[in-house]
């Protein structure tokens, strides 16, 4: 970690735990609920946000002294939308299969409040290198929660991980299902994600009481 100063390291590590965008800043909840029924979708979303937030933060940071205050939100929106469309078009031309998997995420990335939130709160006031690290840190923090939620929802809801039947076959009654275990259909609908995120928030705050708000 000689490359990064202590402050820089914190930019990456803080959002992973004590300043997590989902559980502490409560940003990006919508996509955390919408797409975490499967682990694979969670991972794809995490990587996409990593890219868009990393590059977007740098672009906004480079432009920070030029952006007129009155229209800064629109400028931020245009930067995100442009980045997402460029990625989408390039993938469509060179990795068509992958682009089909991603197409559903495009709209969700543009409207992801983490991205606008970090542009507004960090990139507008810091240099490009710091903004880049902040983007990476926050999207990693976001991705970690997404993957945890996706893991539990797919495992308990469908009995699979990345599509592999890890608990046996529910129709042919093999593995765990032979002893009468059933998949919990509730886990694959969005309210279950809210409950899983809630449990993570509860767990995190009970471990670190400093995070609990006063009232």
């Amino acid at each position, binding site marked *: 970690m000689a490359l990064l100063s202590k402050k820089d390291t914190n930019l990456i590590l803080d959002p992973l735990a004590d300043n997590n965008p989902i559980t502490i800043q409560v940003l990006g909840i919508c996509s955390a609920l919408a797409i975490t*029924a499967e682990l694979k979708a969670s991972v794809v979303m995490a990587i996409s946000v990593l890219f868009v937030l990393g590059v977007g933060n740098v672009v906004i940071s480079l432009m920070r002294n*030029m952006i007129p205050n009155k229209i800064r939100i629109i400028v931020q929106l245009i930067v995100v939308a*442009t980045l997402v469309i460029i990625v989408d078009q390039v993938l469509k031309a060179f990795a*068509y299969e992958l682009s089909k998997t991603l197409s*559903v995420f495009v709209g969700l990335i543009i409207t992801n409040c983490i991205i606008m939130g970090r542009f507004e709160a960090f990139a507008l006031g810091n240099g490009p290198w710091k903004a880049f690290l902040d983007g990476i840190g926050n999207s990693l923090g976001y991705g970690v929660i997404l993957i945890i939620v996706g893991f539990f929802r797919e495992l308990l809801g469908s009995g699979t991980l990345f599509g592999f039947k890890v608990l046996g076959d529910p129709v042919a009654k093999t593995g765990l299902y032979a002893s009468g275990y059933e998949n919990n259909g509730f886990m*694959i609908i969005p309210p279950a994600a809210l409950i899983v995120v809630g449990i993570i928030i509860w767990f995190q705050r009970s471990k670190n009481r400093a995070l609990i708000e006063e009232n």
Partner: protein
Amino acid sequence: MALNTEKNVYTVLFACIMVIVVGSLLAYLATGLKPRIEENERFEKQQNILYAMGVNENEGEGSVNFIPTTEVESVFTDYIKEQLVISGGEITTDDEAYLIDMKKQLDALKRGNPARLPVFIGEKDGKKYHIIPMHGKGLWDAIWGFVAVDEQLIVQGIYFDHKQETPGLGANIKMRYFMDDFIGEQILDGERYVGIAVVKGNNDPLNNIKDDNEVDALAGATITGNGVSAMIRESVNLYRNYFESIRSN
């Protein structure tokens, strides 16, 4: 920075420059990549049509494996013997019928204009397949697909795709375990074109009963499932006259 970013003139100027820069960047990118994207879309349609008639690289159970894009063009001409276009009771052949956009045709029909409806006739191991396109609505956006039937109007294969159904729920209509359930089902109930309905709790989760015009639904994807049912019913009714003609032969 000596720049006064609070001035209205600056704000307007900035907005204009931003629009021009972003607009030309995207336009340049879109035109530059267009030929490649169109080629990809063409290959995809060919892959989908071939998939519906069982020409694919599926192995056992598991994932959907198309004919690779590098070979699909020649495989398509090998297996698809004829491409027909039905327009106002007349049937003509058209080698680019597979490029017809079903959404536009359905919109035309809705407004009472004539439409061009494609049918693909495939042949594999001496067996004839009649493949029709489908187009409908899921929960969020469009769903579409192709269904291949034989002369008795028994489904030989089906392919579904979607624009943006929920991953893990509605998006699973393009999974093998859902699409394979349709194989062997009938689109006729007696003399009525009912299609195949996606239903919950039909006491046949393994889908052993093939003459009930029903397949088991996907949990958590009721509206997408209903969309699939409606799409199949509407599509087979659209091609009713054509199906009648192949049945009487």
